[in-house]
């Protein structure tokens, strides 16, 4: 075996090793590009918000009902709200439609139709907690499922169905999504704490820490 062949092999294996090593290093870093996002607009009356208006911390969330990560963060935000009265949460639609989430648009429509009857958060909770039940369904079946949720949370179904395909509901979702795109959002959920984008915290404690720092 001559030296040239040995070098040949070392270079080959080094290239493969470098690729693997580079990917591991790159992926273990948090995505700092989120911090370069723009500042979302002030909370408007048309926004779906809960928590006191005077709360020192406002979380604006751009989210997608069909996104598994959003469903996971939904449980974290629930815990945050339960832990502190000083948080205001605003939900803005960023459906990743049509791909990768073909049912995300109709889910947003269901939530915004519920909002017309003052029950956005009831539908929001329903959609996230039961995400796995409707996520993979064909559109028609998912629509039926949403209707059953509407009944469960006590919506007027005739009104709900009328609002579902109304231009105002669609315009609201489009406006949210367009603003999100303007801000530079390309993944969900994206959180803004008091107007500033954060890197998605890994777990409840990390999230709580960010909130506590913002409260101070």
């Amino acid at each position, binding site marked *: 075996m001559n030296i040239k062949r040995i070098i040949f092999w070392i270079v080959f294996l080094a290239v493969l090793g470098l690729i693997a090593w580079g990917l591991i290093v790159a992926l273990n870093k948090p995505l700092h590009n989120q911090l370069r996002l723009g500042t979302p607009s002030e909370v408007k009356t048309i926004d779906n918000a809960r928590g006191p208006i005077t709360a020192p911390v406002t979380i604006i969330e751009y989210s997608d009902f069909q996104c598994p990560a959003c469903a996971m963060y939904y449980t974290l935000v629930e815990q945050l709200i339960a832990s502190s009265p000083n948080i205001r949460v605003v939900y803005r639609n960023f459906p990743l439609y049509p791909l990768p989430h073909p049912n995300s648009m109709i889910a947003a429509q269901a939530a915004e139709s519920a909002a017309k009857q003052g029950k956005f958060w009831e539908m929001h909770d329903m959609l996230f907690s039961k995400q796995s039940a409707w996520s993979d369904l064909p559109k028609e079946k998912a629509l039926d499922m949403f209707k059953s949720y509407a009944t469960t949370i006590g919506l007027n179904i005739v009104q709900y169905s009328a609002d579902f395909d109304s231009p105002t509901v669609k315009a609201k979702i489009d406006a949210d999504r367009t603003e999100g795109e303007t801000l530079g959002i390309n*993944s969900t959920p994206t959180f803004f704490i008091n107007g500033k984008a954060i890197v998605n915290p890994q777990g409840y404690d990390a999230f709580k820490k960010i909130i506590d720092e913002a409260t101070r």
Partner: protein
Amino acid sequence: MTHLKKLLTRPLVNISIGLAVVALIVAVLGFADATYLTIEHYRGIVPPCSITGGCEEVLTSEFSTIVGIPTSLLGIIYYLLICVGVFLYLDTKKAVILKITLMLPWFGLGFSLWFTYLQIFVIRSYCAYCLVSAVITATLFFISFIMFKRSHSFHENI
């Protein structure tokens, strides 16, 4: 059947080194892709859903592992075998090594078709990186096909 028998018993001849190099480059890309997916699978944290994504559903689905082994890890081994096989051929010029290596994408193509089917019809989510892997394997299969075809024509024309 006789064709298959000929294919398996005859030595691979009339080999294009250029094509072998292309196969090596493509397999290295496949290796990088599978490595990326494996890291994502093992990171254990929730990847955000992105416009280009769908990987979160696919990588957390019940099909992402085969008897506890991440499919993407099998992908790494598969591409690594092809990389090393082709490289070993380029080093030693032993046709039998290339022949065995070029048979791997036949199985790979079967797996890729199955996983693409699962994404379209069962998981109903598309992971761009998984689809890239399917394209890479299809390319390797195509290269393999050309190599065997060249060899076959050569044998027939003697």
